[in-house]
């Protein structure tokens, strides 16, 4: 099709499009079906969180982090709380640290289920893999619900710990889920990884070279898919990740398929971490008493965690008052999205959608 020149024309993929995972627009210039230029247009979901946060107290800002990456609220909470704790110098009780790890990893599994399910959807499957993965995501959300009462926007992590200790019925539920999970992941893999159509759609599509990945500061499965073993949990351990044993999965080729299988394997590693954390879970308080209006000393702090999408960083500046002076988020979705243009120019629309799906963006986090 490329040789037979047709007049180039512009197609707006989004903001209302089944595959943009929210409201975000790719202004694609097409020659036939081939994309010759792509321009990301962001801001349809901008809620001005960073500015709003400057008017609210440190504690009041936690719900914002739920609503950034609403598919991974736990990790959003965690990153912010870590930053505030670093700023104010708060020690978190050990049990809370373990609970944070458990819930962050559960959230990672849930988020990866969603990411991989929608990725196969983007490849054209008719919802089936998504439904399979939702089955387990549902049980994880049930665990969240029994612990903190919310399923999606959990607001569970608090400054100085977590809001509630886990109830008694949590342990059998999480244990049975963790016992089943490896089989389930094997089931997903059996259903997808050896499917030639999926391979044809995702192998060698949207290849991100390692040097480009590093130069564009991509993180998370996107970076690991390109074959670079980088994980904030290993590089800069927070909570109790340094006591956990887990491996970093990396891809070989840096294509969409590699990102997909990296996520698959990360789920398995998360199960490993959760099992270890449950074994080591000590007794004790789950948070420390803090004043209602927390006033960290003047200064700045940056805390980063490995969220399901990549490196989630919170940069906070305090002027000694009850509200942050500056509240900045390094959101992985936003930074990972910047490589999309390099990936998709020259590909067809279908491939562009697959590439976009493989980055696993969340527009709530991009636009904040």
């Amino acid at each position, binding site marked *: 099709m490329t040789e037979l020149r047709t007049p180039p024309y512009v197609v707006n993929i989004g903001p209302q499009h089944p595959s943009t995972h929210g409201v975000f627009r790719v202004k694609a210039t097409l020659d036939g079906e081939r994309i010759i230029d792509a321009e990301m247009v962001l801001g349809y979901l901008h809620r001005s969180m960073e500015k709003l946060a400057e008017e609210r107290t440190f504690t009041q800002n936690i719900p914002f982090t739920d609503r950034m990456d609403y598919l991974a609220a736990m990790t959003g909470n965690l990153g912010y709380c870590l930053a505030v704790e670093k700023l104010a110098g708060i020690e978190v009780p050990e049990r809370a640290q373990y609970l944070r790890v458990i819930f962050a990893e559960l959230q990672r599994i849930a988020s990866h289920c969603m990411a991989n399910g929608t990725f196969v959807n983007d490849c054209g499957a008719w919802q089936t893999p998504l439904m399979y993965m939702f089955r387990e995501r549902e049980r994880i959300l049930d665990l969240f619900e029994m612990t903190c009462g919310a399923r999606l926007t959990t607001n569970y992590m608090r400054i100085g710990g977590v809001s509630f200790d886990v109830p008694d019925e949590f342990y059998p539920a999480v244990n049975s889920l963790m016992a089943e999970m490896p089989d389930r992941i094997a089931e997903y893999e059996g259903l997808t*990884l050896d*499917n030639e159509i999926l*391979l044809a759609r995702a192998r060698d599509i949207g290849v991100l070279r390692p040097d480009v990945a590093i130069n564009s500061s991509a993180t998370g499965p996107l970076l690991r898919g390109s074959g670079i073993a980088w994980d904030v949990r290993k590089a800069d351990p927070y909570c109790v990740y340094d006591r956990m044993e887990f491996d*970093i999965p*990396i891809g070989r080729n840096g294509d969409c398929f590699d990102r997909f299988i990296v996520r698959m394997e990360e789920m398995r590693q998360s199960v490993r971490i959760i099992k270890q954390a449950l074994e080591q879970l000590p007794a004790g308080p789950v948070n420390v008493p803090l004043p209602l209006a927390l006033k960290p000393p003047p200064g700045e702090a940056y805390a980063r965690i490995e969220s399901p999408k990549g490196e989630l960083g919170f940069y906070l500046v305090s002027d000694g008052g009850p509200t942050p002076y500056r509240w900045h988020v390094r959101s992985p979705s936003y930074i990972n999205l910047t490589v999309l243009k390099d990936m998709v120019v020259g590909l067809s629309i279908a491939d562009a959608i697959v590439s976009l799906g493989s980055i696993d963006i969340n527009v709530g986090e991009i636009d904040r």
Partner: protein
Amino acid sequence: MAPLLNWYDFDPFHDLYHWLDKHVESWVVYLVAAVIGSAGILTFVGLGALVNVWLERRLIGRIQVRRGPNRVGPFGLVQPVADAIKLIQKEVLQPDAADSRLFNLPPIIVFIPAMLTFAVFAWAPDLVLANLDAGVLYLLAISSITALAIFIAGWSSNNKYALLGAMRVIAMMISYEVPMVMCFLAPVLLAGTMSVAGLVQWQQHHFLLAAFVPMSVLIYGLSATAELNRTPADIAEAESEIVAGYHTEYSGMKFGLFYAVELINSLAVSGIMASLFFGGWWLFGVEKVIPAWIIFILKIYFFYFGLIWLRGTLPRFRIDQLMGLAWKMLLPLALINVAVIATEVLIWQEADLGGWVLAPYAVVNIALTAALVVVFFRIVTARFYRLPTRVILVRDIQVPALPAPASSALRPPTPLPQ
């Protein structure tokens, strides 16, 4: 039992026909037969569309570990009616810049080939609405009209997604018609007739054609999904890529018509598959116990189930992959198939062998098909299995040494002014 069997064997119609034949002009008989037959087919198709809505949603639900519609009526059986009422109530929008004269045509035009297909099916030994001499060719000819309707829909919507969908349909239709014609050639050669009823009759005397032309069955199955716009070949309405393809701009009952036609076409394709390759109403003598048309409908639904299964299982091809499949895989296979079958028929006729020769033919053809498909499949998929489909696990952070970045990236720090 005999009187009971009568009414649903459609024998009264035969009597009516013979009675009419004696009393009125032949064209009146023809007209009456056509009206009754069309009414019967319309009934079947109308009911079929309703049943299929329920069946498809329900089965896809099963495949997707959920329940599917189960609220409206027992087992959600009234769901299609609820769907239809909803669709009728919805506002029918039309884009301002649409070509309004053309915009309203496609939902009607797509119905024509969908309905016409059923005319040549042999529902029972003597129950054919139009026993066309060139029935197989007729099936191919009218299937091309669907693509035209889809093209008009995509073109007149004045929507870029719709136009992309329309272009995809046209390209795909041209490509898939070729292997489809080729794969129909094989059974026609073997049976020596192009009439669908004739093919069924041949199978009654010999055996299911699927045993002798397995390659055609495979090729037709794949081409049919492309012709139907169902996964894995639903590139014309690829939801995740071009929203809804050619029917992006259709709403309300206009969309409903497209939806119904898709289901009816699925039935039609299943019917073609059942008649041409799997014996139509014939089933090893069972048709003497159960009315033949019930057997035929059951066969149709068997293949329809296969289509639903495919939809629930497979991702979608990319357009160029789909084209490649047609031209690089299906067409050579179809040509080989035709050559083999032609040779066999030649040997059969020239050497004046009996019907027994079909048994070794079946064995040879099935073995050949299996071998060829495996070989082609290996060749096509070798590229994807170049790399393992599992990840590498590493214990620790390791950042490989990268080639030095471009000069602009690293600058020596500028000394501060004194």
